[in-house]
C-alpha cells in the first residue's frame, strides 16, 4: 500500500500520478466503505467514482494537519450520505434499515448477511463508528474527523454499536 505522504506529494507535483496512487491505495477501501452504507452495488459504484473526483477537485482544501485517510473517508462518507438522501423514500441504511437482499451482488451467507443486517439496524453515528473501526481500522481520532465529532464520542459509539450487534445476533440466532 502506498504511503499517504507519497500520494500527497504526487498530488501536488503531478496530479495525474497522484490520482493513480490514490486509486491504488483507496479504491477498494472506499468502495467497500460506501457499499456497507448504501448496500446496492450500482449506487456504491456511482458514489465511489464521485468521491474520487471530489477528492481530486478539492485537494487544495486538504490541510496537512489533518489525517489524509480521515479526509478521504470523510468525502466518501458524505458522498454515500448524499446518495442515501436522494433515494430516502425507498431505502435508508443510515438511520433506517435497508433490505440487503434487494441487490443481486449479495451472497446470502448466513452469518455475514446477519451481521450486515445488524449493522444496518444501528443509528447512523454508531453504524459509521463501527464500520470505520471494525473494517477500516481507523483510530478514534480519525473516526471523529470523519464523523465531525470527538474521539470520546467515536469510542462510545463504537462500543454501543458492538453491544447492540451482539444482542441482535443472539436474538436472531
Amino acid at each position, binding site marked *: 500500500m502506498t504511503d499517504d505522504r507519497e500520494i500527497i506529494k504526487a498530488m*501536488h507535483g503531478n496530479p495525474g500520478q497522484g490520482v493513480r496512487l490514490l486509486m491504488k491505495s483507496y479504491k477498494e477501501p472506499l468502495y467497500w466503505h460506501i457499499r*456497507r452504507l448504501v448496500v446496492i452495488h450500482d449506487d456504491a459504484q456511482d458514489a465511489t*467514482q464521485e468521491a474520487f473526483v471530489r477528492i481530486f477537485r478539492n485537494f487544495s482544501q486538504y490541510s496537512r494537519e489533518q489525517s489524509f485517510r480521515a479526509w478521504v473517508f470523510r468525502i466518501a462518507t458524505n458522498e454515500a450520505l448524499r446518495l442515501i438522501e436522494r433515494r430516502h423514500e425507498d431505502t435508508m441504511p443510515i438511520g433506517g434499515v435497508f433490505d440487503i437482499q434487494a441487490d443481486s451482488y449479495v451472497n446470502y*451467507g448466513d452469518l455475514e448477511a446477519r451481521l*450486515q443486517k445488524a449493522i444496518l439496524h444501528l443509528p447512523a453515528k454508531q453504524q459509521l463508528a463501527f464500520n470505520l473501526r471494525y473494517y477500516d481500522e481507523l483510530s478514534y481520532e480519525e473516526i471523529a474527523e470523519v464523523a465531525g465529532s470527538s474521539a470520546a464520542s467515536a469510542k462510545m459509539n463504537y462500543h454501543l454499536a*458492538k453491544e447492540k450487534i451482539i444482542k441482535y445476533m*443472539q436474538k436472531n440466532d
Partner: protein
Amino acid sequence: MKQFDFEQVGKRMPYAVPDGFFDKLEADVMQKVNKTASPSNSREKTLRIALRTAMAFAASVVLFFSIKPVLPKNEAVDFESVELAFNNLSTEDQDYLLLVYEDEQDLLYNGLTEEE
C-alpha cells in the same frame, strides 16, 4: 446462551462485485479526472494567459516605437492601431514578434545590447 463472536465472521461480507470491477472503476475515475481541469492547472493556465497578454502589450509598445521614426511625419500612428495590427497577425507571426521581444529583453538584461 452463547455470545456472538465477531471472529466467527471477521471482515467477511455478504457483498460481491462483478469480475474486473476495480480495474474498470479505476479506468472510469481516471477518465473523469482527466476531463476535469485541476485547480492548479487552471491557475497555471490563467497565469500563462496573463503573461502572454502582458508580453503582447509590451511587444506592441516596442513595435510602436520601432516603426514610428521611419513613418512619414504627417502620418499619424497611434498605439491602438499598432495593437490592432498586432492582434490581426497570425499566431505564428505574433509568436515570432514575442520571441524577438523576449530575446531583446534578455539582451538588455544581460547588458549585451549593440549600443554598448
